[in-house]
């Protein structure tokens, strides 16, 4: 479905991704792991065609994402419909006056009845039916996140990219989101997180970025989560001393939130 071939991306402060190659097939549930600032968000934006690599290429269903390709309106419309990105900060995505308009923003090419049907359907799926006339900025953090998800899912994308979707959620909302994603079977998902306690619930395959912005692991998630040395190298585990009575010993954590 999506291929990254030797992708490097530099921004003005330095390297964000260094020679990353990977292939994600339809139906996969991928978890993108890495410490803060290792390039997870950049990778997702590259997959969404919002950034273009300085080296290498990103291919979606065999077509390279280039300036020229993204300027092709018909192709670009279909690409945007098929690939949705949920941003880490819900405020980045919300700008319409009501929840209903927010969900229906991307659907104006559809007939009114179909658009209303889809808005009601996704509002119900995400527990927003009672809030359709509410301005999005009045919603709580969890409700905003659900609204963003509805706004992306209303297009019924084939590939759903999520940037730290649980970062701003309380425990109850986090639990709800994990349950919801488990039921989302028809969609290929790539979820970035540095929360290892949740990672196992979010996918089967792990991609791990190191702090020098390289892909250091691509394989089964369970194996990645049990490899202490790998997690340590990616700065996803921490060690500290623990005092038990008179004894002090080194204790390793990989639970991280």
């Amino acid at each position: 479905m999506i291929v990254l071939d030797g992708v490097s991306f530099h921004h003005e402060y330095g390297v964000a991704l260094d020679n990353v190659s990977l292939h994600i097939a339809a139906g996969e549930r991928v978890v993108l792991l890495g410490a803060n600032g290792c390039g997870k968000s950049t990778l997702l934006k590259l997959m969404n065609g919002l950034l273009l690599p300085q080296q290498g290429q990103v291919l979606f269903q065999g077509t390279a994402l280039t300036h020229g390709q993204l300027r092709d309106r018909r192709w670009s419309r279909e690409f945007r419909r098929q690939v949705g990105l949920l941003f880490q900060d819900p405020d980045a995505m919300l700008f319409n006056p009501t929840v209903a308009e927010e969900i229906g923003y991307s659907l104006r090419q559809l007939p009114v009845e179909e658009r209303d049907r889809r808005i009601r359907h996704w509002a119900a799926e995400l527990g927003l039916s009672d809030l359709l006339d509410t301005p999005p900025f009045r919603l709580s953090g969890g409700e905003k996140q659900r609204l963003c998800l509805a706004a992306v899912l209303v297009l019924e994308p084939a590939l759903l990219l999520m940037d730290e979707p649980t970062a701003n959620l309380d425990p109850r909302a986090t639990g709800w989101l994990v349950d919801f994603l488990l039921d989302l079977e028809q969609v290929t998902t790539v979820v970035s997180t540095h929360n290892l306690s949740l990672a196992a619930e979010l996918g089967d395959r792990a991609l791990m970025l190191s702090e020098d912005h390289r892909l250091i692991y691509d394989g089964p998630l369970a194996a990645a989560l049990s490899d202490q040395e790998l997690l340590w190298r990616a700065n996803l585990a921490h060690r500290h001393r623990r005092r038990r009575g008179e004894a002090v010993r080194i204790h390793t954590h990989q639970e991280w939130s």
Partner: protein
Amino acid sequence: MSPRFWLAAYLLAVVAVSFLHEPLWLAIILLAVLLAAGRLAPRLLWRALLAVLLVNLMVSGGYVALSLWQGNPWALTVIRLNLRVLLLTVLTLWLAARIDLVRALSVGPASRFLAVVAINQILLMRRLVQDYRHAFRSRSVQPPRLRDHYRSAARQGVVLMDKAQAQAESLSQGMRSRGVFDDRP
């Protein structure tokens, strides 16, 4: 030359440009600045044009409409206004590209601290704005209408102000907790 020298030169240039009223001189100075900027010039000019385009169009349009209505001449004033704003913006962008502002403003610990705080705020806002623009592009399956642009820009403005206020509040609390204001009466 030190960053402080360039900052002083910039401030002098801003004052000098404010006293110039002849469009020809403003144009000559703009051309000289662009020539002096060398290979940075095209990028500086483009960014400056983008930065002033909307406001200058609105102000110039309003002035032209009012002058036509009152039967007054407008061309010279509009040319002077646009040239001056463009020149000042090019100068500012050139200074920002050329010097380390933190070092230039570091005349004492307090000013250095304030410069760092201000630049951090600017960088945070820039990252947020970029994120919001990306999100808008990502969600726009169809080309956005003028109404969508307006709504997005308005919402961005409100959110950015909220975030800037929250950031400034926590920053001032941090400064207070570290004793920055303790010597105040």
